[in-house]
């Protein structure tokens, strides 16, 4: 009901800030209800300000900044009510090398309780995985699991 929603909403806002500041090495965010008198119906306002920049409309953020902000929010929600596994499909695609690294470091905070499956084309992300599955289509149109590369240590 209202109380339950507000508690989790406030917690998500705090998590969102913590994770955003980890990924951006600074900056600030805010998560607000457009109408605080109607928590169960109100829309949700998001503000995000990378370090050293002024808070502007989310739309003015760059492709990579938006992606990193969305990651911070989704993981902020995740901290409140997580699932035992999480499949991430190419969410590193818009990120530059440094931000991929920061995203991968973030996974360390979750990996104990959460099993991750990372679908990716990114070499840094591939080396973070303990196990790598390669999918191929040597026969056109038919997927095969071709290789399982286990990393030592």
């Amino acid at each position, binding site marked *: 009901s209202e109380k339950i929603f507000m508690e989790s909403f406030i917690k998500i806002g705090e998590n969102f800030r913590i994770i955003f500041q980890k990924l951006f090495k600074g900056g600030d965010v805010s998560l607000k209800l457009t109408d605080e008198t109607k928590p169960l119906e109100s829309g949700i306002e998001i503000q995000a300000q990378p370090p050293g920049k002024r808070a502007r409309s989310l739309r003015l953020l760059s492709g990579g900044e938006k992606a990193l902000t969305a990651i911070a929010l989704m993981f902020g929600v995740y901290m409140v009510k997580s699932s035992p596994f999480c*499949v991430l499909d190419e969410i590193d695609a818009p990120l530059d090398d440094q931000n991929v690294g920061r995203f991968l470091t973030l996974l360390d905070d979750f990996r104990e309780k959460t099993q991750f499956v990372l679908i990716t084309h990114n070499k840094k992300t591939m080396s973070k995985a303990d196990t790598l599955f390669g*999918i191929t289509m040597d026969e056109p149109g038919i997927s095969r699991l071709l290789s399982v590369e286990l990393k030592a240590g």
Partner: protein
Amino acid sequence: MFIKELEITGFKSFGEKTHVVFNSNITGVVGPNGCGKSNILDALKWVLGEKSVKSMRGDKMEDVIFSGTENKKPAGFAEVDLILDNRSKIINLDYDEIKISRKLFRDGQSIFSLNDNRTSRKEIEGLLMDTGLGKASYSFMQQGQMDMILSSKPEDRRHIFEEAA
């Protein structure tokens, strides 16, 4: 790991039976464009009871059944079996291992099974209800979908927060 094994037969591009064994906390899935990586994510969503055809990129549910190639006939059904580690009893059943299966025939007949006993989707949904598994938005961050929560209108964002509450 929570997901131990996944077996995919006749589901989307998996025209042949494919067995995936998970044994680590971070598993990478790689391969060229169009080889079937996102289809694995779809298979996982589907076996957990996903109802929305659109969210699996199809127009009708039958679209998930392997539709053949020049050299291989279309499949008569799609089947995905998921084996879960339940030692922590995250699912409220007295089993250390739980197998969830979903099978769809071309004529539309749909079969859900729990440890090889036929069950209903509602039953599966009920079991998964409090585990966080039932709700796709946490467990699956889909290709090209991450942007949406930021670009959607304030009113349209509620569902993610409501699911968490």
